């Protein structure tokens, strides 16, 4: 393959391209917009249903914009003491934030040691972490449930939080980042007499802020959305997080779609809000990591 240095060749190629593609560009926009609508309409339908009175859910005529706006569906699920969705919301906030903070702490410290320190057994231990990447998550359900039960963490937030801390993704992710840092800054700190703990806290960690932010967002999203594990561990209704809560909601309101959709909206709003705010971060982190686990 030859590289092209002649500017007029490049220009001619790109000019031809532009002219022949002006019309195609319009079609492209039309296609892109049609697909965007297809993607977004289910979400709008969720929102629309949640803001309608029951009389409009099944009408022979469908209205995307409710004829009568009502908060009634939200009111109903918020007032229902046997389905404490407000409580679930705060449970979700608590569980997800705790998981995120703990993962950031333990994964970045571990990753720093694997990246920058020498110790006996390092390669073996790191190999052990690597090996579990190839084990499907399905294998862990039953044994981890037994362990959580034995530790007395069943039906307890800790039972939801703790197994997630064993994940190795964050360690790999942070290790890769620390290894990409130039060593000189840390070496300068050692010459100034800093200990390794100080170097980690005051030199490496501040430099790692973007990586920590990325890991934090991914962890929070994954924890907020987690469905199966909290469904297994949490039994009392007051303790549920939102995703398993939605299953309870579906069971309780067999055909009250307005209430169900109100629950779905409440569950989605925080993550959609985060997504809109941090869209670039989230998309780029998925692109760079391929997001394993």
């Amino acid at each position, binding site marked *: 393959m030859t590289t092209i240095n002649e500017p007029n060749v490049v220009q001619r190629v790109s000019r031809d391209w532009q002219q022949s593609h002006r019309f195609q560009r319009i079609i492209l926009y039309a296609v892109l917009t049609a697909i965007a609508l297809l993607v977004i309409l289910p979400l709008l339908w969720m929102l629309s249903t949640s803001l309608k009175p029951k009389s409009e859910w099944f009408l022979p005529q469908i209205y995307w914009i409710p004829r009568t706006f009502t908060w009634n569906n939200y009111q109903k699920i918020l007032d229902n003491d046997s389905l404490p969705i407000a409580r679930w919301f705060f449970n979700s906030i608590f569980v997800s934030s705790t998981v995120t903070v703990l993962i950031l702490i333990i994964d970045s410290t571990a990753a720093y040691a694997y990246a920058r320190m020498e110790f006996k057994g390092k390669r073996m231990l790191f190999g052990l972490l690597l090996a579990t990447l190839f084990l499907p998550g399905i294998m862990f359900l039953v044994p981890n449930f037994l362990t959580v039960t034995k530790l007395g963490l069943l039906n307890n937030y800790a039972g939801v939080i703790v197994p997630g801390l064993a994940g190795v993704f964050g360690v790999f992710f942070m290790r890769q980042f620390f290894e990409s840092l130039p060593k000189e800054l840390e070496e300068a700190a050692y010459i100034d*007499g800093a200990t390794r703990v100080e170097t980690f806290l005051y030199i490496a960690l501040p430099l790692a802020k973007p990586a920590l932010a990325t890991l934090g967002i991914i962890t929070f999203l994954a924890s907020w959305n987690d469905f199966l594990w909290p469904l297994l561990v949490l039994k009392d209704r007051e303790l549920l997080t939102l*995703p398993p809560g939605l299953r309870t909601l579906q069971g309780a309101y067999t055909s009250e779609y307005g209430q169900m959709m109100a629950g779905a909206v409440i569950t989605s709003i925080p993550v959609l809000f985060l997504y809109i705010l941090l869209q670039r971060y989230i*998309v780029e982190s*998925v692109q760079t990591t391929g997001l394993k686990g």
Partner: protein
Amino acid sequence: MTVSTKEIAAAMPVQGRKVRFDWVPYLFILPHFLFFVVFAAFPFFLGLFISFFEYDILRPEATQFVGLKNYLSLFTRGTVEFPVFWNALINTIEFVLMSVPFLVIIPLFLALLLNTNLSGKNVYRAIYFAPWVMSSAVIGLLGFWIFQSQGGLLNYYLKDLGIDTPRWLSSMPWAWVSILIVTVWWTSGFNMIIILAALQNIPATLYEAASIDGASWWQRFRYVTIPQLRPVLVFIVIITIIASFNLFAQPLFMTNGGPAQSGGGGSTEPIMLRIYNEGFVRNRMGSGAAMSFVVALIMIFVSYFNFRLFRTRE
């Protein structure tokens, strides 16, 4: 200021010098390692161990060693487990085979559409990816509402178009079609993002050279894009197979594994739902663990096979 490596080595605590046991690195890895051992390494052995027992978590006193029985009953005709396990496993494999082509081709198509210098393409990219940030529980519940045969959005429009409206969630093969559509809607954006990143890394000079050689659009796609994308497409295929194997919330919310069928087991019951029912609804932990080990073995084999296929072609 220049500093020799010797000075650095001398300044760095312990490194390279035999002083005494250096415990600092171990302290750094300890918190994560503790959780890792208890919830990621040990469970492998605990799961294997428990799969040799008849074990009901509600009646631990009735626990008994049964050897390979939990495994054998999955492979012996006439046991209770045999038909339901294979029904769910075959359902899952069918879902994998059905969903993976859609979840590669649609995202590839979307990524190609967005791999231009259109203004506003980041907005489209953000919209296509958006469903992925929501919980599978929300996706399942929303699917349950939209695919309702009475009052559901989809049938409303199909009726308008004069198309026969199936009972999506309670008849076959429509129940599977619904789950497939919902899953494609939910996760296509994720695969698209990864493919798009790979597309943007293809050197422009390759396309320019191909254009000058008179290559058509199709030839550029076939002989430049596809070979350049091969590694990422293999990666996408592997992670999508794994994701489809883990199908759980969509059928749980939308069909609850149904409609029921005469041979036992639900028509849309995936293996995760079967293991959930076996281990956590029927409380047969030993049998549930055995099932998950068999499935995990299949998943590891499939991933390895894919990986090998890709390696030999490189």
